[in-house]
């Protein structure tokens, strides 16, 4: 007998493939897009000890495993507003004086918002407060007045890829002189209430989330 096993048996076994004829979700389906987007918005830096818990159950009633739940719940960020902190999520923090380039994702984002939670906010690897100093088509520059986490650049640019329109965050336009609180993950500015115009309430949440 050759190295390949029983050809006839293999052929018969192939015919017994339980997935033959089973229609699976195409990668272009809304479900797939949502799952992929959720995956890409997952924090890399999260260690098990920092994973939020308990995690909510998914619809359907079947008991889900904790690891996935953690992913589906707390670790997953919100709304695909993208920021190019760098191509590598674990890239070192920028040096003082340099500009940190962030992006707001353009186009369609299938991801949905998580309810705002300080525990989730605390997972964000990049958090800062800054005031808009310049507004151009598709890009704004902010002067950072405080780094809560993940950098020490003096300026941050936020741009919207493939869009000449004005940059907006959750529908809020970056206006000159306006102060914002921003968090970012994977080069992505997080929306859904995890970033936004400066307010005492949001600032208090930042204080709580990023307290050392």
């Amino acid at each position, binding site marked *: 007998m050759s190295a390949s096993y029983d050809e006839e048996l293999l052929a018969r076994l192939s015919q*017994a493939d*339980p997935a033959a004829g089973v229609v*699976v979700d*195409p*990668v272009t389906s809304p479900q797939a897009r949502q*799952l*992929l987007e959720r995956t890409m918005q997952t924090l890399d830096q999260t260690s098990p000890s920092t994973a939020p818990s308990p995690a909510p159950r998914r619809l359907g009633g079947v*008991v889900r495993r904790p690891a*996935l739940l953690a992913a589906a719940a707390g670790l997953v960020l919100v709304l695909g507003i993208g920021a190019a902190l760098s191509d590598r999520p674990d890239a070192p923090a920028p040096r003082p004086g340099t500009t940190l380039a962030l992006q707001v994702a353009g186009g369609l984002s299938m991801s949905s918002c998580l309810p705002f939670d300080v525990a989730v906010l605390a997972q964000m690897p990049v958090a800062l407060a800054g005031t808009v100093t310049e507004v151009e088509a598709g890009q704004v520059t902010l002067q950072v007045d405080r780094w809560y986490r993940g950098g020490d650049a003096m300026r941050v640019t936020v741009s919207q890829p493939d869009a000449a329109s004005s940059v907006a965050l959750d529908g809020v336009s970056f206006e000159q002189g306006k102060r914002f609180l921003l968090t970012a993950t*994977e080069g992505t500015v997080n929306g859904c209430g995890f970033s936004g115009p400066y307010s005492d309430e949001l600032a208090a949440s930042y204080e709580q989330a990023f307290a050392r």
Partner: protein
Amino acid sequence: MRRRRAFEDLASTVYEPLQRYLLRRVDEATAQDVLGDVLLVLWRRLADVPPDAALPWSYGVARRCLANSLRAAERQDQLVRKLATVRAAPPEAGEAFADLHLALAALPAQDRELLRLSAWEQLAPREIAVVLGCTPNAASIRLHRAGKRLRRALETGAGKDAGPGGHPGKRQRREAAR
């Protein structure tokens, strides 16, 4: 956002085959859960994915995620329920393959996986080696032996009395842990 693009590219290659891989082994709800885990691992380990063997490598991730899932289920004392949902002989397979599915279910786990990877995922031994983390030569030899054991199981009607989990006396080889 090069990383996102790379992940999208990978997903377009592996997303559908991974679903089939999982659906061949567990029920739909578990498959869906594990798929999420697999994607998460692929996203985190994007830099490690071998460009020339992305799919077998992803199957390897799926295999480990699935094993974790089943272990977790066991811990939660749901083993019986979980095993009951493993597709031993799905209805669409029909009567014609019932004996084959039973014989397959009676084999040691590693044999079963080798045979499935070959017959269902249509992988060559060198690709199976990527999934299992062994050498192509070892994959080839093990596949050959697994085929012989399946043939024997079919001939002796094994599996008709045994539940999933295989022959009680069949010892797992040391490398079966891989």
